[in-house]
């Protein structure tokens, strides 16, 4: 299963629902384009919903880091929502869990942008 990223707006926050495999190649490229596209439109508060991500490799993790730094460098915030166990474990192993602001419920994640 390849990766799919669907963008929706919740209040002023851009939620990107990501599903499938985030791996080296087209998937990473597509995710990068979606993030850069939103930044290009001035959307600087992004919430990546990873609930349906079935697999992520080291390149996919790198792409999340790349997205994080791209958003941060523009004064925005990128947060993660609904990590699967696999993604959660990988972020723990790579010590990135402390870098990302991770949430388990969408409403809480959305409101965290308002209070940030």
């Amino acid at each position, binding site marked *: 299963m390849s990766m799919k990223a669907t963008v929706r707006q919740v209040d002023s926050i851009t939620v990107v629902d990501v599903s499938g495999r985030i791996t080296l190649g087209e998937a990473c490229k597509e995710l990068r384009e979606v993030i850069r596209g939103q930044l290009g439109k001035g959307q600087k508060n992004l919430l990546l919903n990873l609930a349906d991500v079935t697999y992520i490799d080291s390149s996919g993790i790198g792409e999340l880091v790349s997205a994080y730094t791209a958003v941060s460098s523009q004064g925005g915030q990128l947060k993660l929502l609904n990590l699967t166990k696999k993604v959660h474990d990988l972020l723990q192993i790579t*010590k990135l869990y402390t*870098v990302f602001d991770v949430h388990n419920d969408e409403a809480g994640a959305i409101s965290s942008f308002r209070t940030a």
Partner: protein
Amino acid sequence: MNPDASIVEVVLESKLQNVEVAEEMARSVSAKAGFGEEAGYHIEMAVHEGVINAIYHGNKEDPGKKVHLKFMVFEDELEIHIRDEGKGFDPSTLPDPLARENLLNVSGRGIFLVRKFMDEFRVESFPGGGTEVIMVKHLTSRIEPNLRRNRP
């Protein structure tokens, strides 16, 4: 050939599509060897990263160079060999992805994950070119001292 091992091997072209072929083989072999879902995922991930490393960093995507993948199933462990035809690398020179200054690097986590997910890891270089990554996963639940076989 080691008489104690059941061996599955394949030679792959240096194409990204072949990473999924290698993963599928890893899934199949690890399941037949008796690994559970989580260990199977770790093996699949290690093979995924190892083959990507061989294609991109070893063979530099040269279509004339191959990736040699071998699974050796022992009674108490699975040994995997991934050999490229490149110039080789020294894993001790790879930057630590957990170091504060490297934490936000976009790349450099592949071999780190292989080390984390497998029980043994080593790299051997061949005089005529080519590097072999060798990784082992123990079937810990089955290990009994008197069943452990002699290694080659």
